[in-house]
């Protein structure tokens, strides 16, 4: 019996090592949530990662950006996470896109899965639309901390899996025009949103688990839970109650024929 570093995860399937090594995974945002995801994917044996993040490391990131250390401030976040991935998985192909993902969107098109770790509804909306257009599974995570009474806080979060031909984030009521508009009004006044490592870890780990379940047959489940809510005060993950309203409904936001590049012409340069 082979006894290599992946022996203990052989239950994921005979071909899981090859599946992971061939999959191309994009992570949009590599700070709180995305850094966990990158680390876990590297440990699992994923060898083709594409990291998107336009920011450089700042002091307030160091409380939660897995793989970052005090000497890393002013470095590009993508550089720091690449280095972490390569420590775990030497020889991995880690492509860096220290830009807004829209500026290098073509690099997403052949992804097996896209993980979105953005803190902005408008950005999520565009990323989901892009993934739908190119038939890419999109797994979104995010957390919020709210002050519910003076000195009392609530932590919440979500893992949403948006698969082509299945309900989208608009169907689930997670993305709405009102939320996007309110966010746009607050632009510049947003300040520093509270963030802490352990909820990011819970959400990222769950997202990685969902991703692995999409790629390998280990649990033979027939029902994906596309919207998982995180109650950070009770430390509970549960299916969102909105899912019961989505049973059997087709997504009206992304028709099945709204795929591909509407500007495609043979030999034409990518925009």
């Amino acid at each position, binding site marked *: 019996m082979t006894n290599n570093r992946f022996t203990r995860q052989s239950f994921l399937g005979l071909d899981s090592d090859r599946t992971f090594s061939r999959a191309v995974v994009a992570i949009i945002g590599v700070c709180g949530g995305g850094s966990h995801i990158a680390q876990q994917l590297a440990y699992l044996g994923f060898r083709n990662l594409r990291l998107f993040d336009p920011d450089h490391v700042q002091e307030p990131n160091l409380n939660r950006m897995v793989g970052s250390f005090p000497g890393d401030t002013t470095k590009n976040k993508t550089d720091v996470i690449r280095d972490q991935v390569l420590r775990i998985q030497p020889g991995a192909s880690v492509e860096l896109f220290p830009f807004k993902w829209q500026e290098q969107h073509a690099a997403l098109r*052949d992804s097996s899965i896209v993980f979105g770790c953005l803190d902005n509804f408008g950005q999520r909306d565009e990323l989901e639309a892009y993934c739908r257009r190119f038939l890419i599974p999109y797994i979104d995570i995010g957390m919020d901390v709210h002050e519910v009474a003076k000195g009392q806080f609530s932590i919440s979060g979500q893992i949403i899996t948006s*698969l082509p031909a299945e309900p989208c984030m608009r169907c689930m009521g997670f993305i709405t025009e009102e939320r996007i508009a309110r966010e746009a009004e607050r632009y510049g006044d947003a300040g520093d949103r509270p963030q802490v490592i352990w909820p990011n870890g819970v959400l990222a780990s769950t997202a990685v688990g969902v991703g692995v379940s999409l790629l390998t047959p280990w649990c033979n489940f027939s029902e994906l839970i596309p919207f998982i809510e995180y109650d950070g005060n009770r430390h509970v993950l549960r299916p969102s109650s909105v899912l019961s309203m989505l049973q059997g409904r087709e997504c009206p936001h992304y028709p*099945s*024929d709204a795929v591909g590049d509407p500007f495609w012409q043979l030999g034409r340069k990518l925009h």
Partner: protein
Amino acid sequence: MTLHLRLTGKLFERLHDDLSRRHQHSAERVAFMSCLAATMKDGTLALLGAGFHPVADDDYERDPSVGAMLRASAFRNVLQIAYNCPVSMLHVHRHEHRGMPWFSDVDLREAHKYVPDFWKVRPGFPHGILVLSHDSAAGLIWMPDSGVPSRLRRISLVGAPMREIRHDK
């Protein structure tokens, strides 16, 4: 140029469901799938499954010498679709076995006749053929005005779970 077909698991199931239906006199069924194109960063051309277009029962000829023979009306319907929308059209049928399927001499001979018709209504777009088995698939794509088709190197089924069929050789 590397060619890749990507479609949802749901669309793939619809194809199988339709092709599984018995026909009065035709031994096999045929369907068409419309696809939209996209170029990947590395130059790979991806065809993304968009629509499923079954062939009506009345559009099969009685011809026991072949699995299925379509009337001209069947082709007229899908040619009209390709004329109206900027799509690539794939002719789809199934061989009743497990394992990697491939096209028979008859499949290829007939495809060489009807695929060029799609360029009359939708020039500049690739068109082709897809054959399924009960657990796999293979395809050939003709680039515009090319007499020689290229094999689909990858067929990706996007859903829960995902599935990839590779023809890397």
